[in-house]
C-alpha cells in the first residue's frame, strides 16, 4: 500500500484496512530502495519509528487514537530540534548536536500520534545550498536526479515527491517551502507569520522565518497544519488570535471568489519560461471555470520586494552567525559562508531603512488586496535547473527564477501547487497567496484547483 496521501492513510487506518506498522514499513522500504539516489534523509529512525508504530497500533486497538494524524509517518527538516536525536542543520558546525528538548512542532506532531521516520536534508542552516562540501550530499529531484530540488527544504520536497513519507515539515524564510514544492511538484504551504511556532527550530532570520507543511496534496498540508498551528508562548512572534481549523474550510469551492492576478511579477519583473507561462494561463482558465472572478492586480516590482527581503534576511542571519564566521569560517560550505558574509556589509542604518521599506510594502500589499479573497501568480518560473549549475559560484543571487519575496516580507500565507509538467517531465508550479490570516481561503483555492486538474495522478518514475 505505497504512496498513500496522509488523508487516505488516515481513512485506511480508521477503517482498519491498514496499520501504522504497515505504513511505516512501506516508508522504510521505499527509503531503502530509492534514497541512495535522492539523498533526502540525513537520518532514518527505523527502529524508533517501528516501535512508535506498534505503540500507535496498540493505542488505536484500545480506542485511544489521538486524531487524524495518529499513526501517520512524517519527516522533519533537520533544523527542527528532536529530543535525544541529532539535529544538524545539515552543517559540519552542528554535526554532534543532540538537543535535549523537542521543538514545539515535533512535540505537537508526537502528541497527535504521528510517527517520525527521520530527519530530512536541508541547505546548510536553511540557506547554503545545494552544496557538495558538506557532511551530507544534497538532495536530488525525484523527477530527474540530475536536477535541483529547490531549497532550502530540499529533503522535504524530494522525500514527499518520491513517496518516501506522506508528510514533511519545511521552513520558509524567502521561499524555502514554496521553491522545493514547486520544483518537486508537491504542495507546500507557508502559513501566515506567527501561525506555527518556531520554538526549537534553528533560525535563519527571525523576522522572516516561517514553519509550514509540505505534502503531496493541499488537503494533506491542511491536515498537518491543523496539528501544528496555534499560539506558543515560547515563540515571541506567535500569533495570539485563536487558530481555526483550515481542514474544515477546504471544501465548498471557489465560485464567486474575487482573485487578483499579479501578471507583472511573471511577465515583466522576472520572465517566466514559456512552458511555465502557458501553465499559468491554463491555470487561470481553470479558476475561471470554477467560478472565480479574476481581476488584474499591480504591486511594486518584484525587485523591490526581493531587495528588501534579502537585506533584512542576511543582516539578521549575519547577526546569528557572526561568532562562528569569526572563529571557524572554514567549517561552513563555501556557498553558505559567502551568503552569510553578505550580511556583513549591511549597516545598522541600512537595516532600519529596510525595515521601514518593509512596512511601506506591507501597507501597499494590504491596500491592494483589500476586497480580494486572494491573489495568484507564478512560483518557480522555470522547471528545476541542473543541480550542478546551481552549486557553482557566484553564490549570492538565486539562479532559479523564483517569485517568493513579496509573501515572505508581508508574512502572508502562500501556497505552491503543481500546475503541470514541462516537456521534459519536470513539474511546473503556481502560487496562491492572501492577506495575513487568510490561510483557509488560500488552501481552499489550492484544493479546488487540485481537484479540478489531473496533476496529482502522476508520480515520479523512480
Amino acid at each position, binding site marked *: 500500500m505505497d504512496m498513500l496521501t496522509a488523508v487516505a492513510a488516515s481513512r485506511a487506518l480508521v477503517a482498519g484496512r491498514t496499520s501504522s506498522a504497515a505504513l511505516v514499513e512501506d516508508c522504510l522500504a521505499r527509503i531503502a530502495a530509492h534514497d541512495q539516489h535522492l539523498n533526502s534523509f540525513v537520518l532514518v529512525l527505523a527502529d524508533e519509528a517501528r516501535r512508535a508504530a506498534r505503540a500507535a497500533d496498540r493505542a488505536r486497538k484500545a480506542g485511544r487514537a489521538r486524531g487524524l494524524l495518529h499513526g501517520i509517518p512524517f519527516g522533519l527538516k533537520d533544523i527542527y530540534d528532536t529530543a535525544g536525536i541529532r539535529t544538524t542543520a545539515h552543517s559540519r558546525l552542528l554535526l554532534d548536536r543532540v538537543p535535549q528538548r523537542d521543538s514545539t512542532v515535533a512535540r505537537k506532531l508526537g502528541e497527535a500520534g504521528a510517527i517520525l521516520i527521520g530527519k530530512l536534508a536541508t541547505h546548510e542552516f536553511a540557506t547554503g545550498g545545494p552544496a557538495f562540501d558538506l557532511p551530507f550530499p544534497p538532495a536530488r529531484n525525484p523527477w530527474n536526479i540530475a536536477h535541483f530540488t529547490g531549497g532550502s527544504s530540499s529533503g522535504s520536497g524530494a522525500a514527499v515527491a518520491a513517496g518516501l513519507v506522506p508528510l514533511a515539515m519545511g521552513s520558509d524564510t524567502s521561499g524555502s517551502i514554496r521553491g522545493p514544492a514547486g520544483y518537486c511538484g508537491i504542495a507546500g504551504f507557508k502559513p501566515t507569520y506567527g501561525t506555527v511556532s518556531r520554538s526549537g527550530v534553528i533560525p535563519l532570520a527571525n523576522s522572516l522565518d516561517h514553519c509550514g507543511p509540505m505534502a503531496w496534496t493541499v488537503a494533506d498540508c491542511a491536515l498537518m497544519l491543523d496539528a501544528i498551528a496555534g499560539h506558543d508562548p515560547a515563540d515571541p512572534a506567535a500569533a495570539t488570535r485563536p487558530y481555526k481549523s483550515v481542514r474544515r474550510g477546504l471544501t465548498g469551492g471557489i465560485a464567486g471568489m474575487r482573485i487578483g492576478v499579479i501578471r507583472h511579477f511573471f511577465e515583466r519583473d522576472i520572465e517566466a519560461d514559456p512552458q511555465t507561462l502557458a501553465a499559468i494561463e491554463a491555470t487561470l482558465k481553470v479558476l475561471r471555470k470554477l467560478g472565480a472572478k479574476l481581476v488584474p492586480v499591480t504591486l511594486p516590482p518584484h525587485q523591490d520586494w526581493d531587495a528588501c527581503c534579502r537585506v533584512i534576511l542576511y543582516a539578521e542571519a549575519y547577526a546569528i552567525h557572526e561568532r562562528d564566521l569569526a572563529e571557524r569560517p572554514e567549517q561552513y560550505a*563555501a556557498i553558505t*559562508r559567502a551568503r552569510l*558574509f553578505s550580511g556583513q556589509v549591511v549597516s545598522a542604518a541600512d537595516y532600519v531603512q529596510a525595515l521601514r*521599506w518593509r512596512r*511601506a510594502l506591507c501597507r501597499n500589499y494590504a491596500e491592494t488586496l483589500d476586497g480580494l479573497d486572494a491573489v495568484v501568480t507564478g512560483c518557480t518560473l522555470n522547471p528545476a535547473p541542473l543541480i550542478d549549475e546551481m552549486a557553482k559560484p557566484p553564490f*549570492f543571487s538565486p539562479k532559479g527564477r523564483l517569485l517568493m519575496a513579496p509573501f515572505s516580507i508581508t508574512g502572508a500565507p502562500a501556497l505552491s501547487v503543481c500546475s503541470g509538467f514541462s516537456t521534459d517531465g519536470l513539474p511546473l508550479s503556481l502560487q496562491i497567496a492572501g492577506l495575513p490570516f487568510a490561510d483557509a481561503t488560500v488552501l481552499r483555492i489550492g484544493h479546488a484547483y487540485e481537484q479540478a486538474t489531473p496533476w496529482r495522478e502522476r508520480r515520479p518514475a523512480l
Partner: protein
Amino acid sequence: MTKQSGPTLDHLDDESRRQAEQAQAAMRELIALIPHHFTYADELDLVFLPDHAG
C-alpha cells in the same frame, strides 16, 4: 576593555575571499535600492509587527 575581533575575510583562502566579496558586492547593489524618502513620521513603523491581535 577591548572588543573581540569580528569576522574578517582576511582569514579566508583566496577563493573563499573572492566568493564572499562577490556576495558583498551583490548585497551593496541591493542596499542601493532601498528608498531613503522616509520622514520623521515614519519612525513609528520601524518594527515588523504583523496584526496578531484580535
